């Protein structure tokens, strides 16, 4: 009898702790998403600086207009390229798997595949602004103390994320989240083959739209660690962004204030 009770208790305990771990990992991920992404429609200016072997090789500026989809809860973003002058006015739309590139000079709207999107600078956008909890299932992989992007030691939860939706760019993600405040500290993004695609550090937290948010993301290429992109986020503005903006037919009409 005692043995049977002990056995049942052990099962309950293991099931209970498993359930707790699953729920808490997902909750941590949701809280982490909420820090990177304001919970209302907003625009933000993004300055991308690209380095090769420590040397600056490119700089781009774009403005991202984002809102949460009414269905599914994923972020949809309309990106307007500002600099360099060659690309000024060009647009990229990402609404789930619906992705478009628009050139105002040729008036051409071109549908993009996820692979095509990885070519451009905006490819790094989903490292910075994406609702991971919607597309990935999180599991707790333990606690680790790591150095954050500003060189400080942080006690973190290590989460492993497996894609639960189709059409996502990354098959698996490892994420380190501050145990104190759910701030994302670091993430590693993997292809389906297991190849490391990118490592991202979220740093320089500042008060933006009512919360401390990372204003800089350092992205290190997985294949070539000498290729580094720094994304700087500035001018966060809460604004009305109707869902009707997030479609191909609106691209030729897009002229925000």
């Amino acid at each position, binding site marked *: 009898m005692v043995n049977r009770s002990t056995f049942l208790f052990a099962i309950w305990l293991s099931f209970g702790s498993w359930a707790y771990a699953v729920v808490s990992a997902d909750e941590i991920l949701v809280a982490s998403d909420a820090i990177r992404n304001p919970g209302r429609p907003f625009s933000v*200016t993004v*300055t*991308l*600086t*690209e*380095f090769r072997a*420590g040397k*600056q*090789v*490119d*700089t781009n*500026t774009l403005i991202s207009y984002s809102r949460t989809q*009414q269905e599914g809860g994923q972020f949809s973003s309309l990106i*307007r390229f*500002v*600099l*360099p*002058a*060659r690309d*000024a*006015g060009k647009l990229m739309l990402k609404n*789930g798997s*619906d*992705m478009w590139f628009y050139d105002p*000079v*040729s*008036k*051409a*709207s071109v*549908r993009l*595949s*996820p*692979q*095509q999107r*990885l*070519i451009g600078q905006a490819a790094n956008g989903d490292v910075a602004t994406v609702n991971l909890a919607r597309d990935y299932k999180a599991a707790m992989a333990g606690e680790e103390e790591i150095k954050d*992007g500003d*060189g400080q030691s942080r006690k973190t939860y290590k989460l492993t994320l497996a894609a639960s939706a189709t*059409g996502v760019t990354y098959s698996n993600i490892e994420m380190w989240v501050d145990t104190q405040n759910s701030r994302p500290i670091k993430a590693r993004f993997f292809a389906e083959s297991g190849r490391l695609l990118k*490592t991202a*550090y979220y*740093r320089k937290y500042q008060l933006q739209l009512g919360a401390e948010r990372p204003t800089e993301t*350092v992205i*290190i290429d997985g294949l070539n*660690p*000498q290729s*580094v992109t*720094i994304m*700087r986020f500035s001018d966060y503005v809460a604004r009305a962004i*109707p*869902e*009707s*903006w997030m*479609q*191909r*037919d*609106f691209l030729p*009409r897009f*002229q925000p*204030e």
Partner: protein
Amino acid sequence: MNCKSVLDSCFAVSVAFVFAASAHAADDADALKLEGAPIEAVAASARDTRFFLEAVVGNSSQRYRLGGLDIGRVSLDFSQTFRVGTALRFFLSDRVDHIYPDVVGADATVNSLREAYVSWQGDGGGTVVEFGRINLRYGPAYGYNPTDFFRDGSLRTLTTANPFALRENRLGSVMLRAQRLWAEGSLSFALSPKLASVPSRDGWGLDLGSTNNKDRALLALGMKVAETANIQLLAFKANGLSTTIGASLTALLSDATTVQAEWSHGSEPDLLSRARGLSAPSTARNRFAGGVTYTTSGKLSITAEYEYNGFALSKSNAAALAQITPMGQVAYQVEAQRLQDLAARQAILVYLSQKDFLTKNLDVTAFVRANLNDASKLVWMELRRHWTNFDLALQWQQTLGRATSEYGVLPDRRVVQLLGIYYF
């Protein structure tokens, strides 16, 4: 394998793993020392302006004369958005091309007022009303757009054979346009009146005779029909012709593959009759273009497209025309070019673009257009290097085919030119 070798292997793997981990850590530490470029304050006015100067020099190897022909061009390209309050915008887009040597019967300097229109947006962008000269373009295909109903007569100058770049020069048509958008679709209506009868030869003229030489109306419905598929349904009416209907589709087939197709069906005189200025009876025919784009992980995008024009000459008629009246064939090509229509009954396009070819900021673009009726081909390739405000490009173009074929009849056998573009 003995225990020692197993242990040695384990040790080697462990050392390699630790070494790789520490290498990663060192790479990360180096990366985190980097500082991003300062955030540039970009004035709203600057974001609304696009202005560049393009200069071209080159040489064309000719079919009908000995030696090469030196060619050159200088172009100024300007676009500006003016904002009045939150709902009103005024768009101006203009381009001036000075071409050497000038085309016989045309001015050497040609101004193209591409767009000049006022736009009002209400309901947070849900309702749009626009009036003026508007470049209204439809069609997702790469090389031929049967649903691009306002394409005819829209090019004053031909500065490239690249179908993508060609679209940058085209004139808009004067029209009143209204659009209503909702979450996953839109309905739009455009009304374009006749304002002039014949094209203008004045290089500085508005050339309304090219873009507004008949009354036209277009109704277009765009819808997202699946998570990764969109369609457009169109109905177009031009004065003197019955209604032409059209449809287009774009869809995502896989993480690396997209498909695009468009079709139109209408009744009009065939292309040869239009080229000859004959009042031939209208017949109902189809136009179609459909292709697939695949992108590799190495940043190479490849598009293969099939194109069909039921109004173009059939294979046997095209061959007969070329034999009987070579000048008639030239007139046929010129008319197809003016209408931005497909001269061949059937054609294919293979289009490649490679970003960061061998080195950062060096792009390669190339395409082959082939007339399936006469097997003639146009091959075009560009190597383009980007700097912050400057592009330098080398272009090479070759036409291949019999003397009586679509591309074999063109005077330019081979064109090599160097472009410099400065963005202000």
